[in-house]
């Protein structure tokens, strides 16, 4: 198993190199450049040329790529072209923990609601509880965050006044492990609504998947075997059916995790959260090449690691899967 993990990690190096090369090529292939505009004004030709020279953008593309990769080896993702006095490392360091924390909380909420809801629906297949939870799940999947977020703000922040609206007042002076803001009541008052917004969609898709998978597993012969043994129904479901039915859920957890901890543009915009999500979008419109590269690479690393964890979890869930 350890050997397998090391081999997988080594294999991921060329994969990440390929991703870096592709992202590099694609971002440069976009028309326009990072210095076409400063605010609303377009910059004079001479200023642009100077800036390009400063950032080495006038060199041939393969030289730029080689330079970038050399810096990358040292862990330096380069300067941001748009936020002039910040490096990409700075930006990631400031914004990623915020998105990460919010993402983990939402995912936890999604699992906490989604899995039990899926189980309840499956066990009451084609009865009103199933219809009800399927209906809520479809609603949850199909209401976009851009609708749900403002709706929650309107009810809980504006009408009821329970939470502050559209601001992120989290205190970053005292951090656990150097990056986790303390989860006090102040934190929750800001994080509750965005967590619910993100968690709703997640729990809805997790519930649907759990239901479908469990429905399939409880029709298997070995479940009938378990019943024939005379086990109480609870044992049949929890011991025999549930673990087998969690495999598809675990499968989507990898990509879900990578997606959600790197922040969501829409939710961060709605709630005024200074997270990483907006950099994914803005860096591309700004042609801020180093930020594009940095966010894409961070996402890829997370995805690759999450999928490795998923594969390890498989081996635990299903003894037929063995790695060596």
């Amino acid at each position, binding site marked *: 198993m350890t050997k397998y993990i090391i081999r997988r990690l080594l294999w991921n190096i060329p994969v990440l190199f390929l991703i870096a090369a592709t992202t590099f090529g694609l971002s440069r292939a976009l028309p326009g450049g990072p210095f076409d505009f400063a605010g609303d004004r377009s910059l004079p030709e001479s200023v642009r040329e100077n800036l390009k020279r400063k950032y080495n953008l006038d060199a041939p593309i393969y030289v730029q790529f080689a330079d970038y990769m050399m810096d990358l080896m040292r862990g330096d993702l380069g300067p941001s072209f748009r936020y002039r006095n910040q490096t990409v490392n700075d930006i990631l360091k400031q914004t990623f923990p915020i998105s990460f924390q919010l993402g983990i909380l939402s995912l936890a909420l999604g699992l906490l609601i989604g899995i039990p809801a899926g189980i309840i629906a499956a066990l009451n297949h084609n009865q009103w509880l199933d219809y009800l939870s399927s209906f809520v799940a479809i609603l949850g999947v199909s209401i976009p965050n851009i609708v749900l977020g403002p709706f929650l703000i309107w009810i809980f922040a504006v009408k009821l006044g329970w939470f502050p609206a559209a601001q992120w007042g989290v205190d970053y002076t005292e951090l656990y492990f150097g990056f986790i803001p303390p989860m006090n009541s102040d934190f929750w008052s800001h994080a509750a609504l965005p967590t619910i917004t993100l968690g709703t969609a997640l729990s809805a898709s997790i519930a649907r998947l759990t239901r479908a998978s469990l429905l399939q597993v409880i029709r298997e*012969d070995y479940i009938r*075997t378990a019943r*024939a043994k*005379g086990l*109480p129904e609870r044992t049949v479901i929890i011991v*025999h059916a549930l673990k087998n039915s969690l495999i598809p859920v675990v499968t989507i957890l990898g990509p879900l995790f990578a997606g959600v901890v790197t922040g969501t543009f829409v939710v961060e915009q709605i709630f005024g959260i200074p997270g990483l999500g907006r950099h994914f979008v803005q860096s591309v419109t700004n042609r801020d090449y180093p930020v594009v590269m940095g966010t894409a690479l961070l996402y890829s690393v997370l995805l690759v690691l999450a999928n490795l964890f998923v594969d390890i979890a498989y081996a635990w869930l*299903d*003894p037929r899967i063995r790695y060596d």
Partner: protein
Amino acid sequence: MSQGDVLLDVQGLKMYFPITEGILIQHHIGDVKAVDDISFTVRRGETLGLVGESGCGKSTTGRAVLQLYRPTAGHVYFDGVDLTTLKGEELRRMRRRMQMIFQDPYASLNPRMTVGDIVGEPLEVHGIAKGKEKLDRVAELLEVVGLNPYFVTRYPHEFSGGQRQRIGIARALAVNPEFIVCDEPISALDVSIQAQVINLLEDLQAQFGLTYLFIAHDLSVVRHISDRVAVMYLGKIVELADRNELYENPLHPYTQALLSAVPIPDPEIEAQRQRIILKGDVPSPVNPPSGCRFHTRCPVVIDVCKEVEPEFKDAGGGHYVACHLVH
């Protein structure tokens, strides 16, 4: 003819699976009449063979008898107790006395439990043994079915089909049942292994005084192991008789057709064997034919067959048959 008291008495058993349609609200639009009003008895210590084509309702019968499906109608008396009226805890306790060996040894064992857990779980659930005692009993059971007790920590996928079926048998035996439904226990196995498993089942029956309902679609296997044989067609039992009587003197045209397809070991008789080829397909159990269900394919059909359902009754000496030509 094996005598003895009746262990299992099935009366008017029906198992319908509803067919529903609709997106939000499900409408009941019909039923799959998988088992439609069948009655039979199984005596203590005997083996009743149940044969018929694929889809005729054999497995459904076995499962409905054991209450793995709740029957739509009818009664199942096990040692005098009507199982269809039992619920929850009472039914669970009865399960100790009746077990099932499943058709597919690949699908019927939980892939993520070890052999020890699969066989040992019922012991614990029914409070028969736990801890060290349980482990000893599991090892003993594995030995009884001819497996190495050393296999307890292995998972089902590490075994061949024949070995898996032995695990399934050990599991069924764990609770010391009196009655076992064997649902085509060998049809998924290699021919070379089939005989071994059959012999094992026979040995166990002798050793533990078991009663079997033995389901198969292969008439030669049933002939070997059964005391009496029931023939099923499209959810109904059409003929039931002592083994030798049924094979030597089949009364129902469907049984005759099935038997005509079985090769005879004696080459001289085999040369004269006349195959009765049934025309058409098995009709759907959703809309079974009126009157005698076999009339659409029966080679000797008469007019009355299309309207009146023949009664399933004794044609003499405990040879039951449902056909207008006989009665």
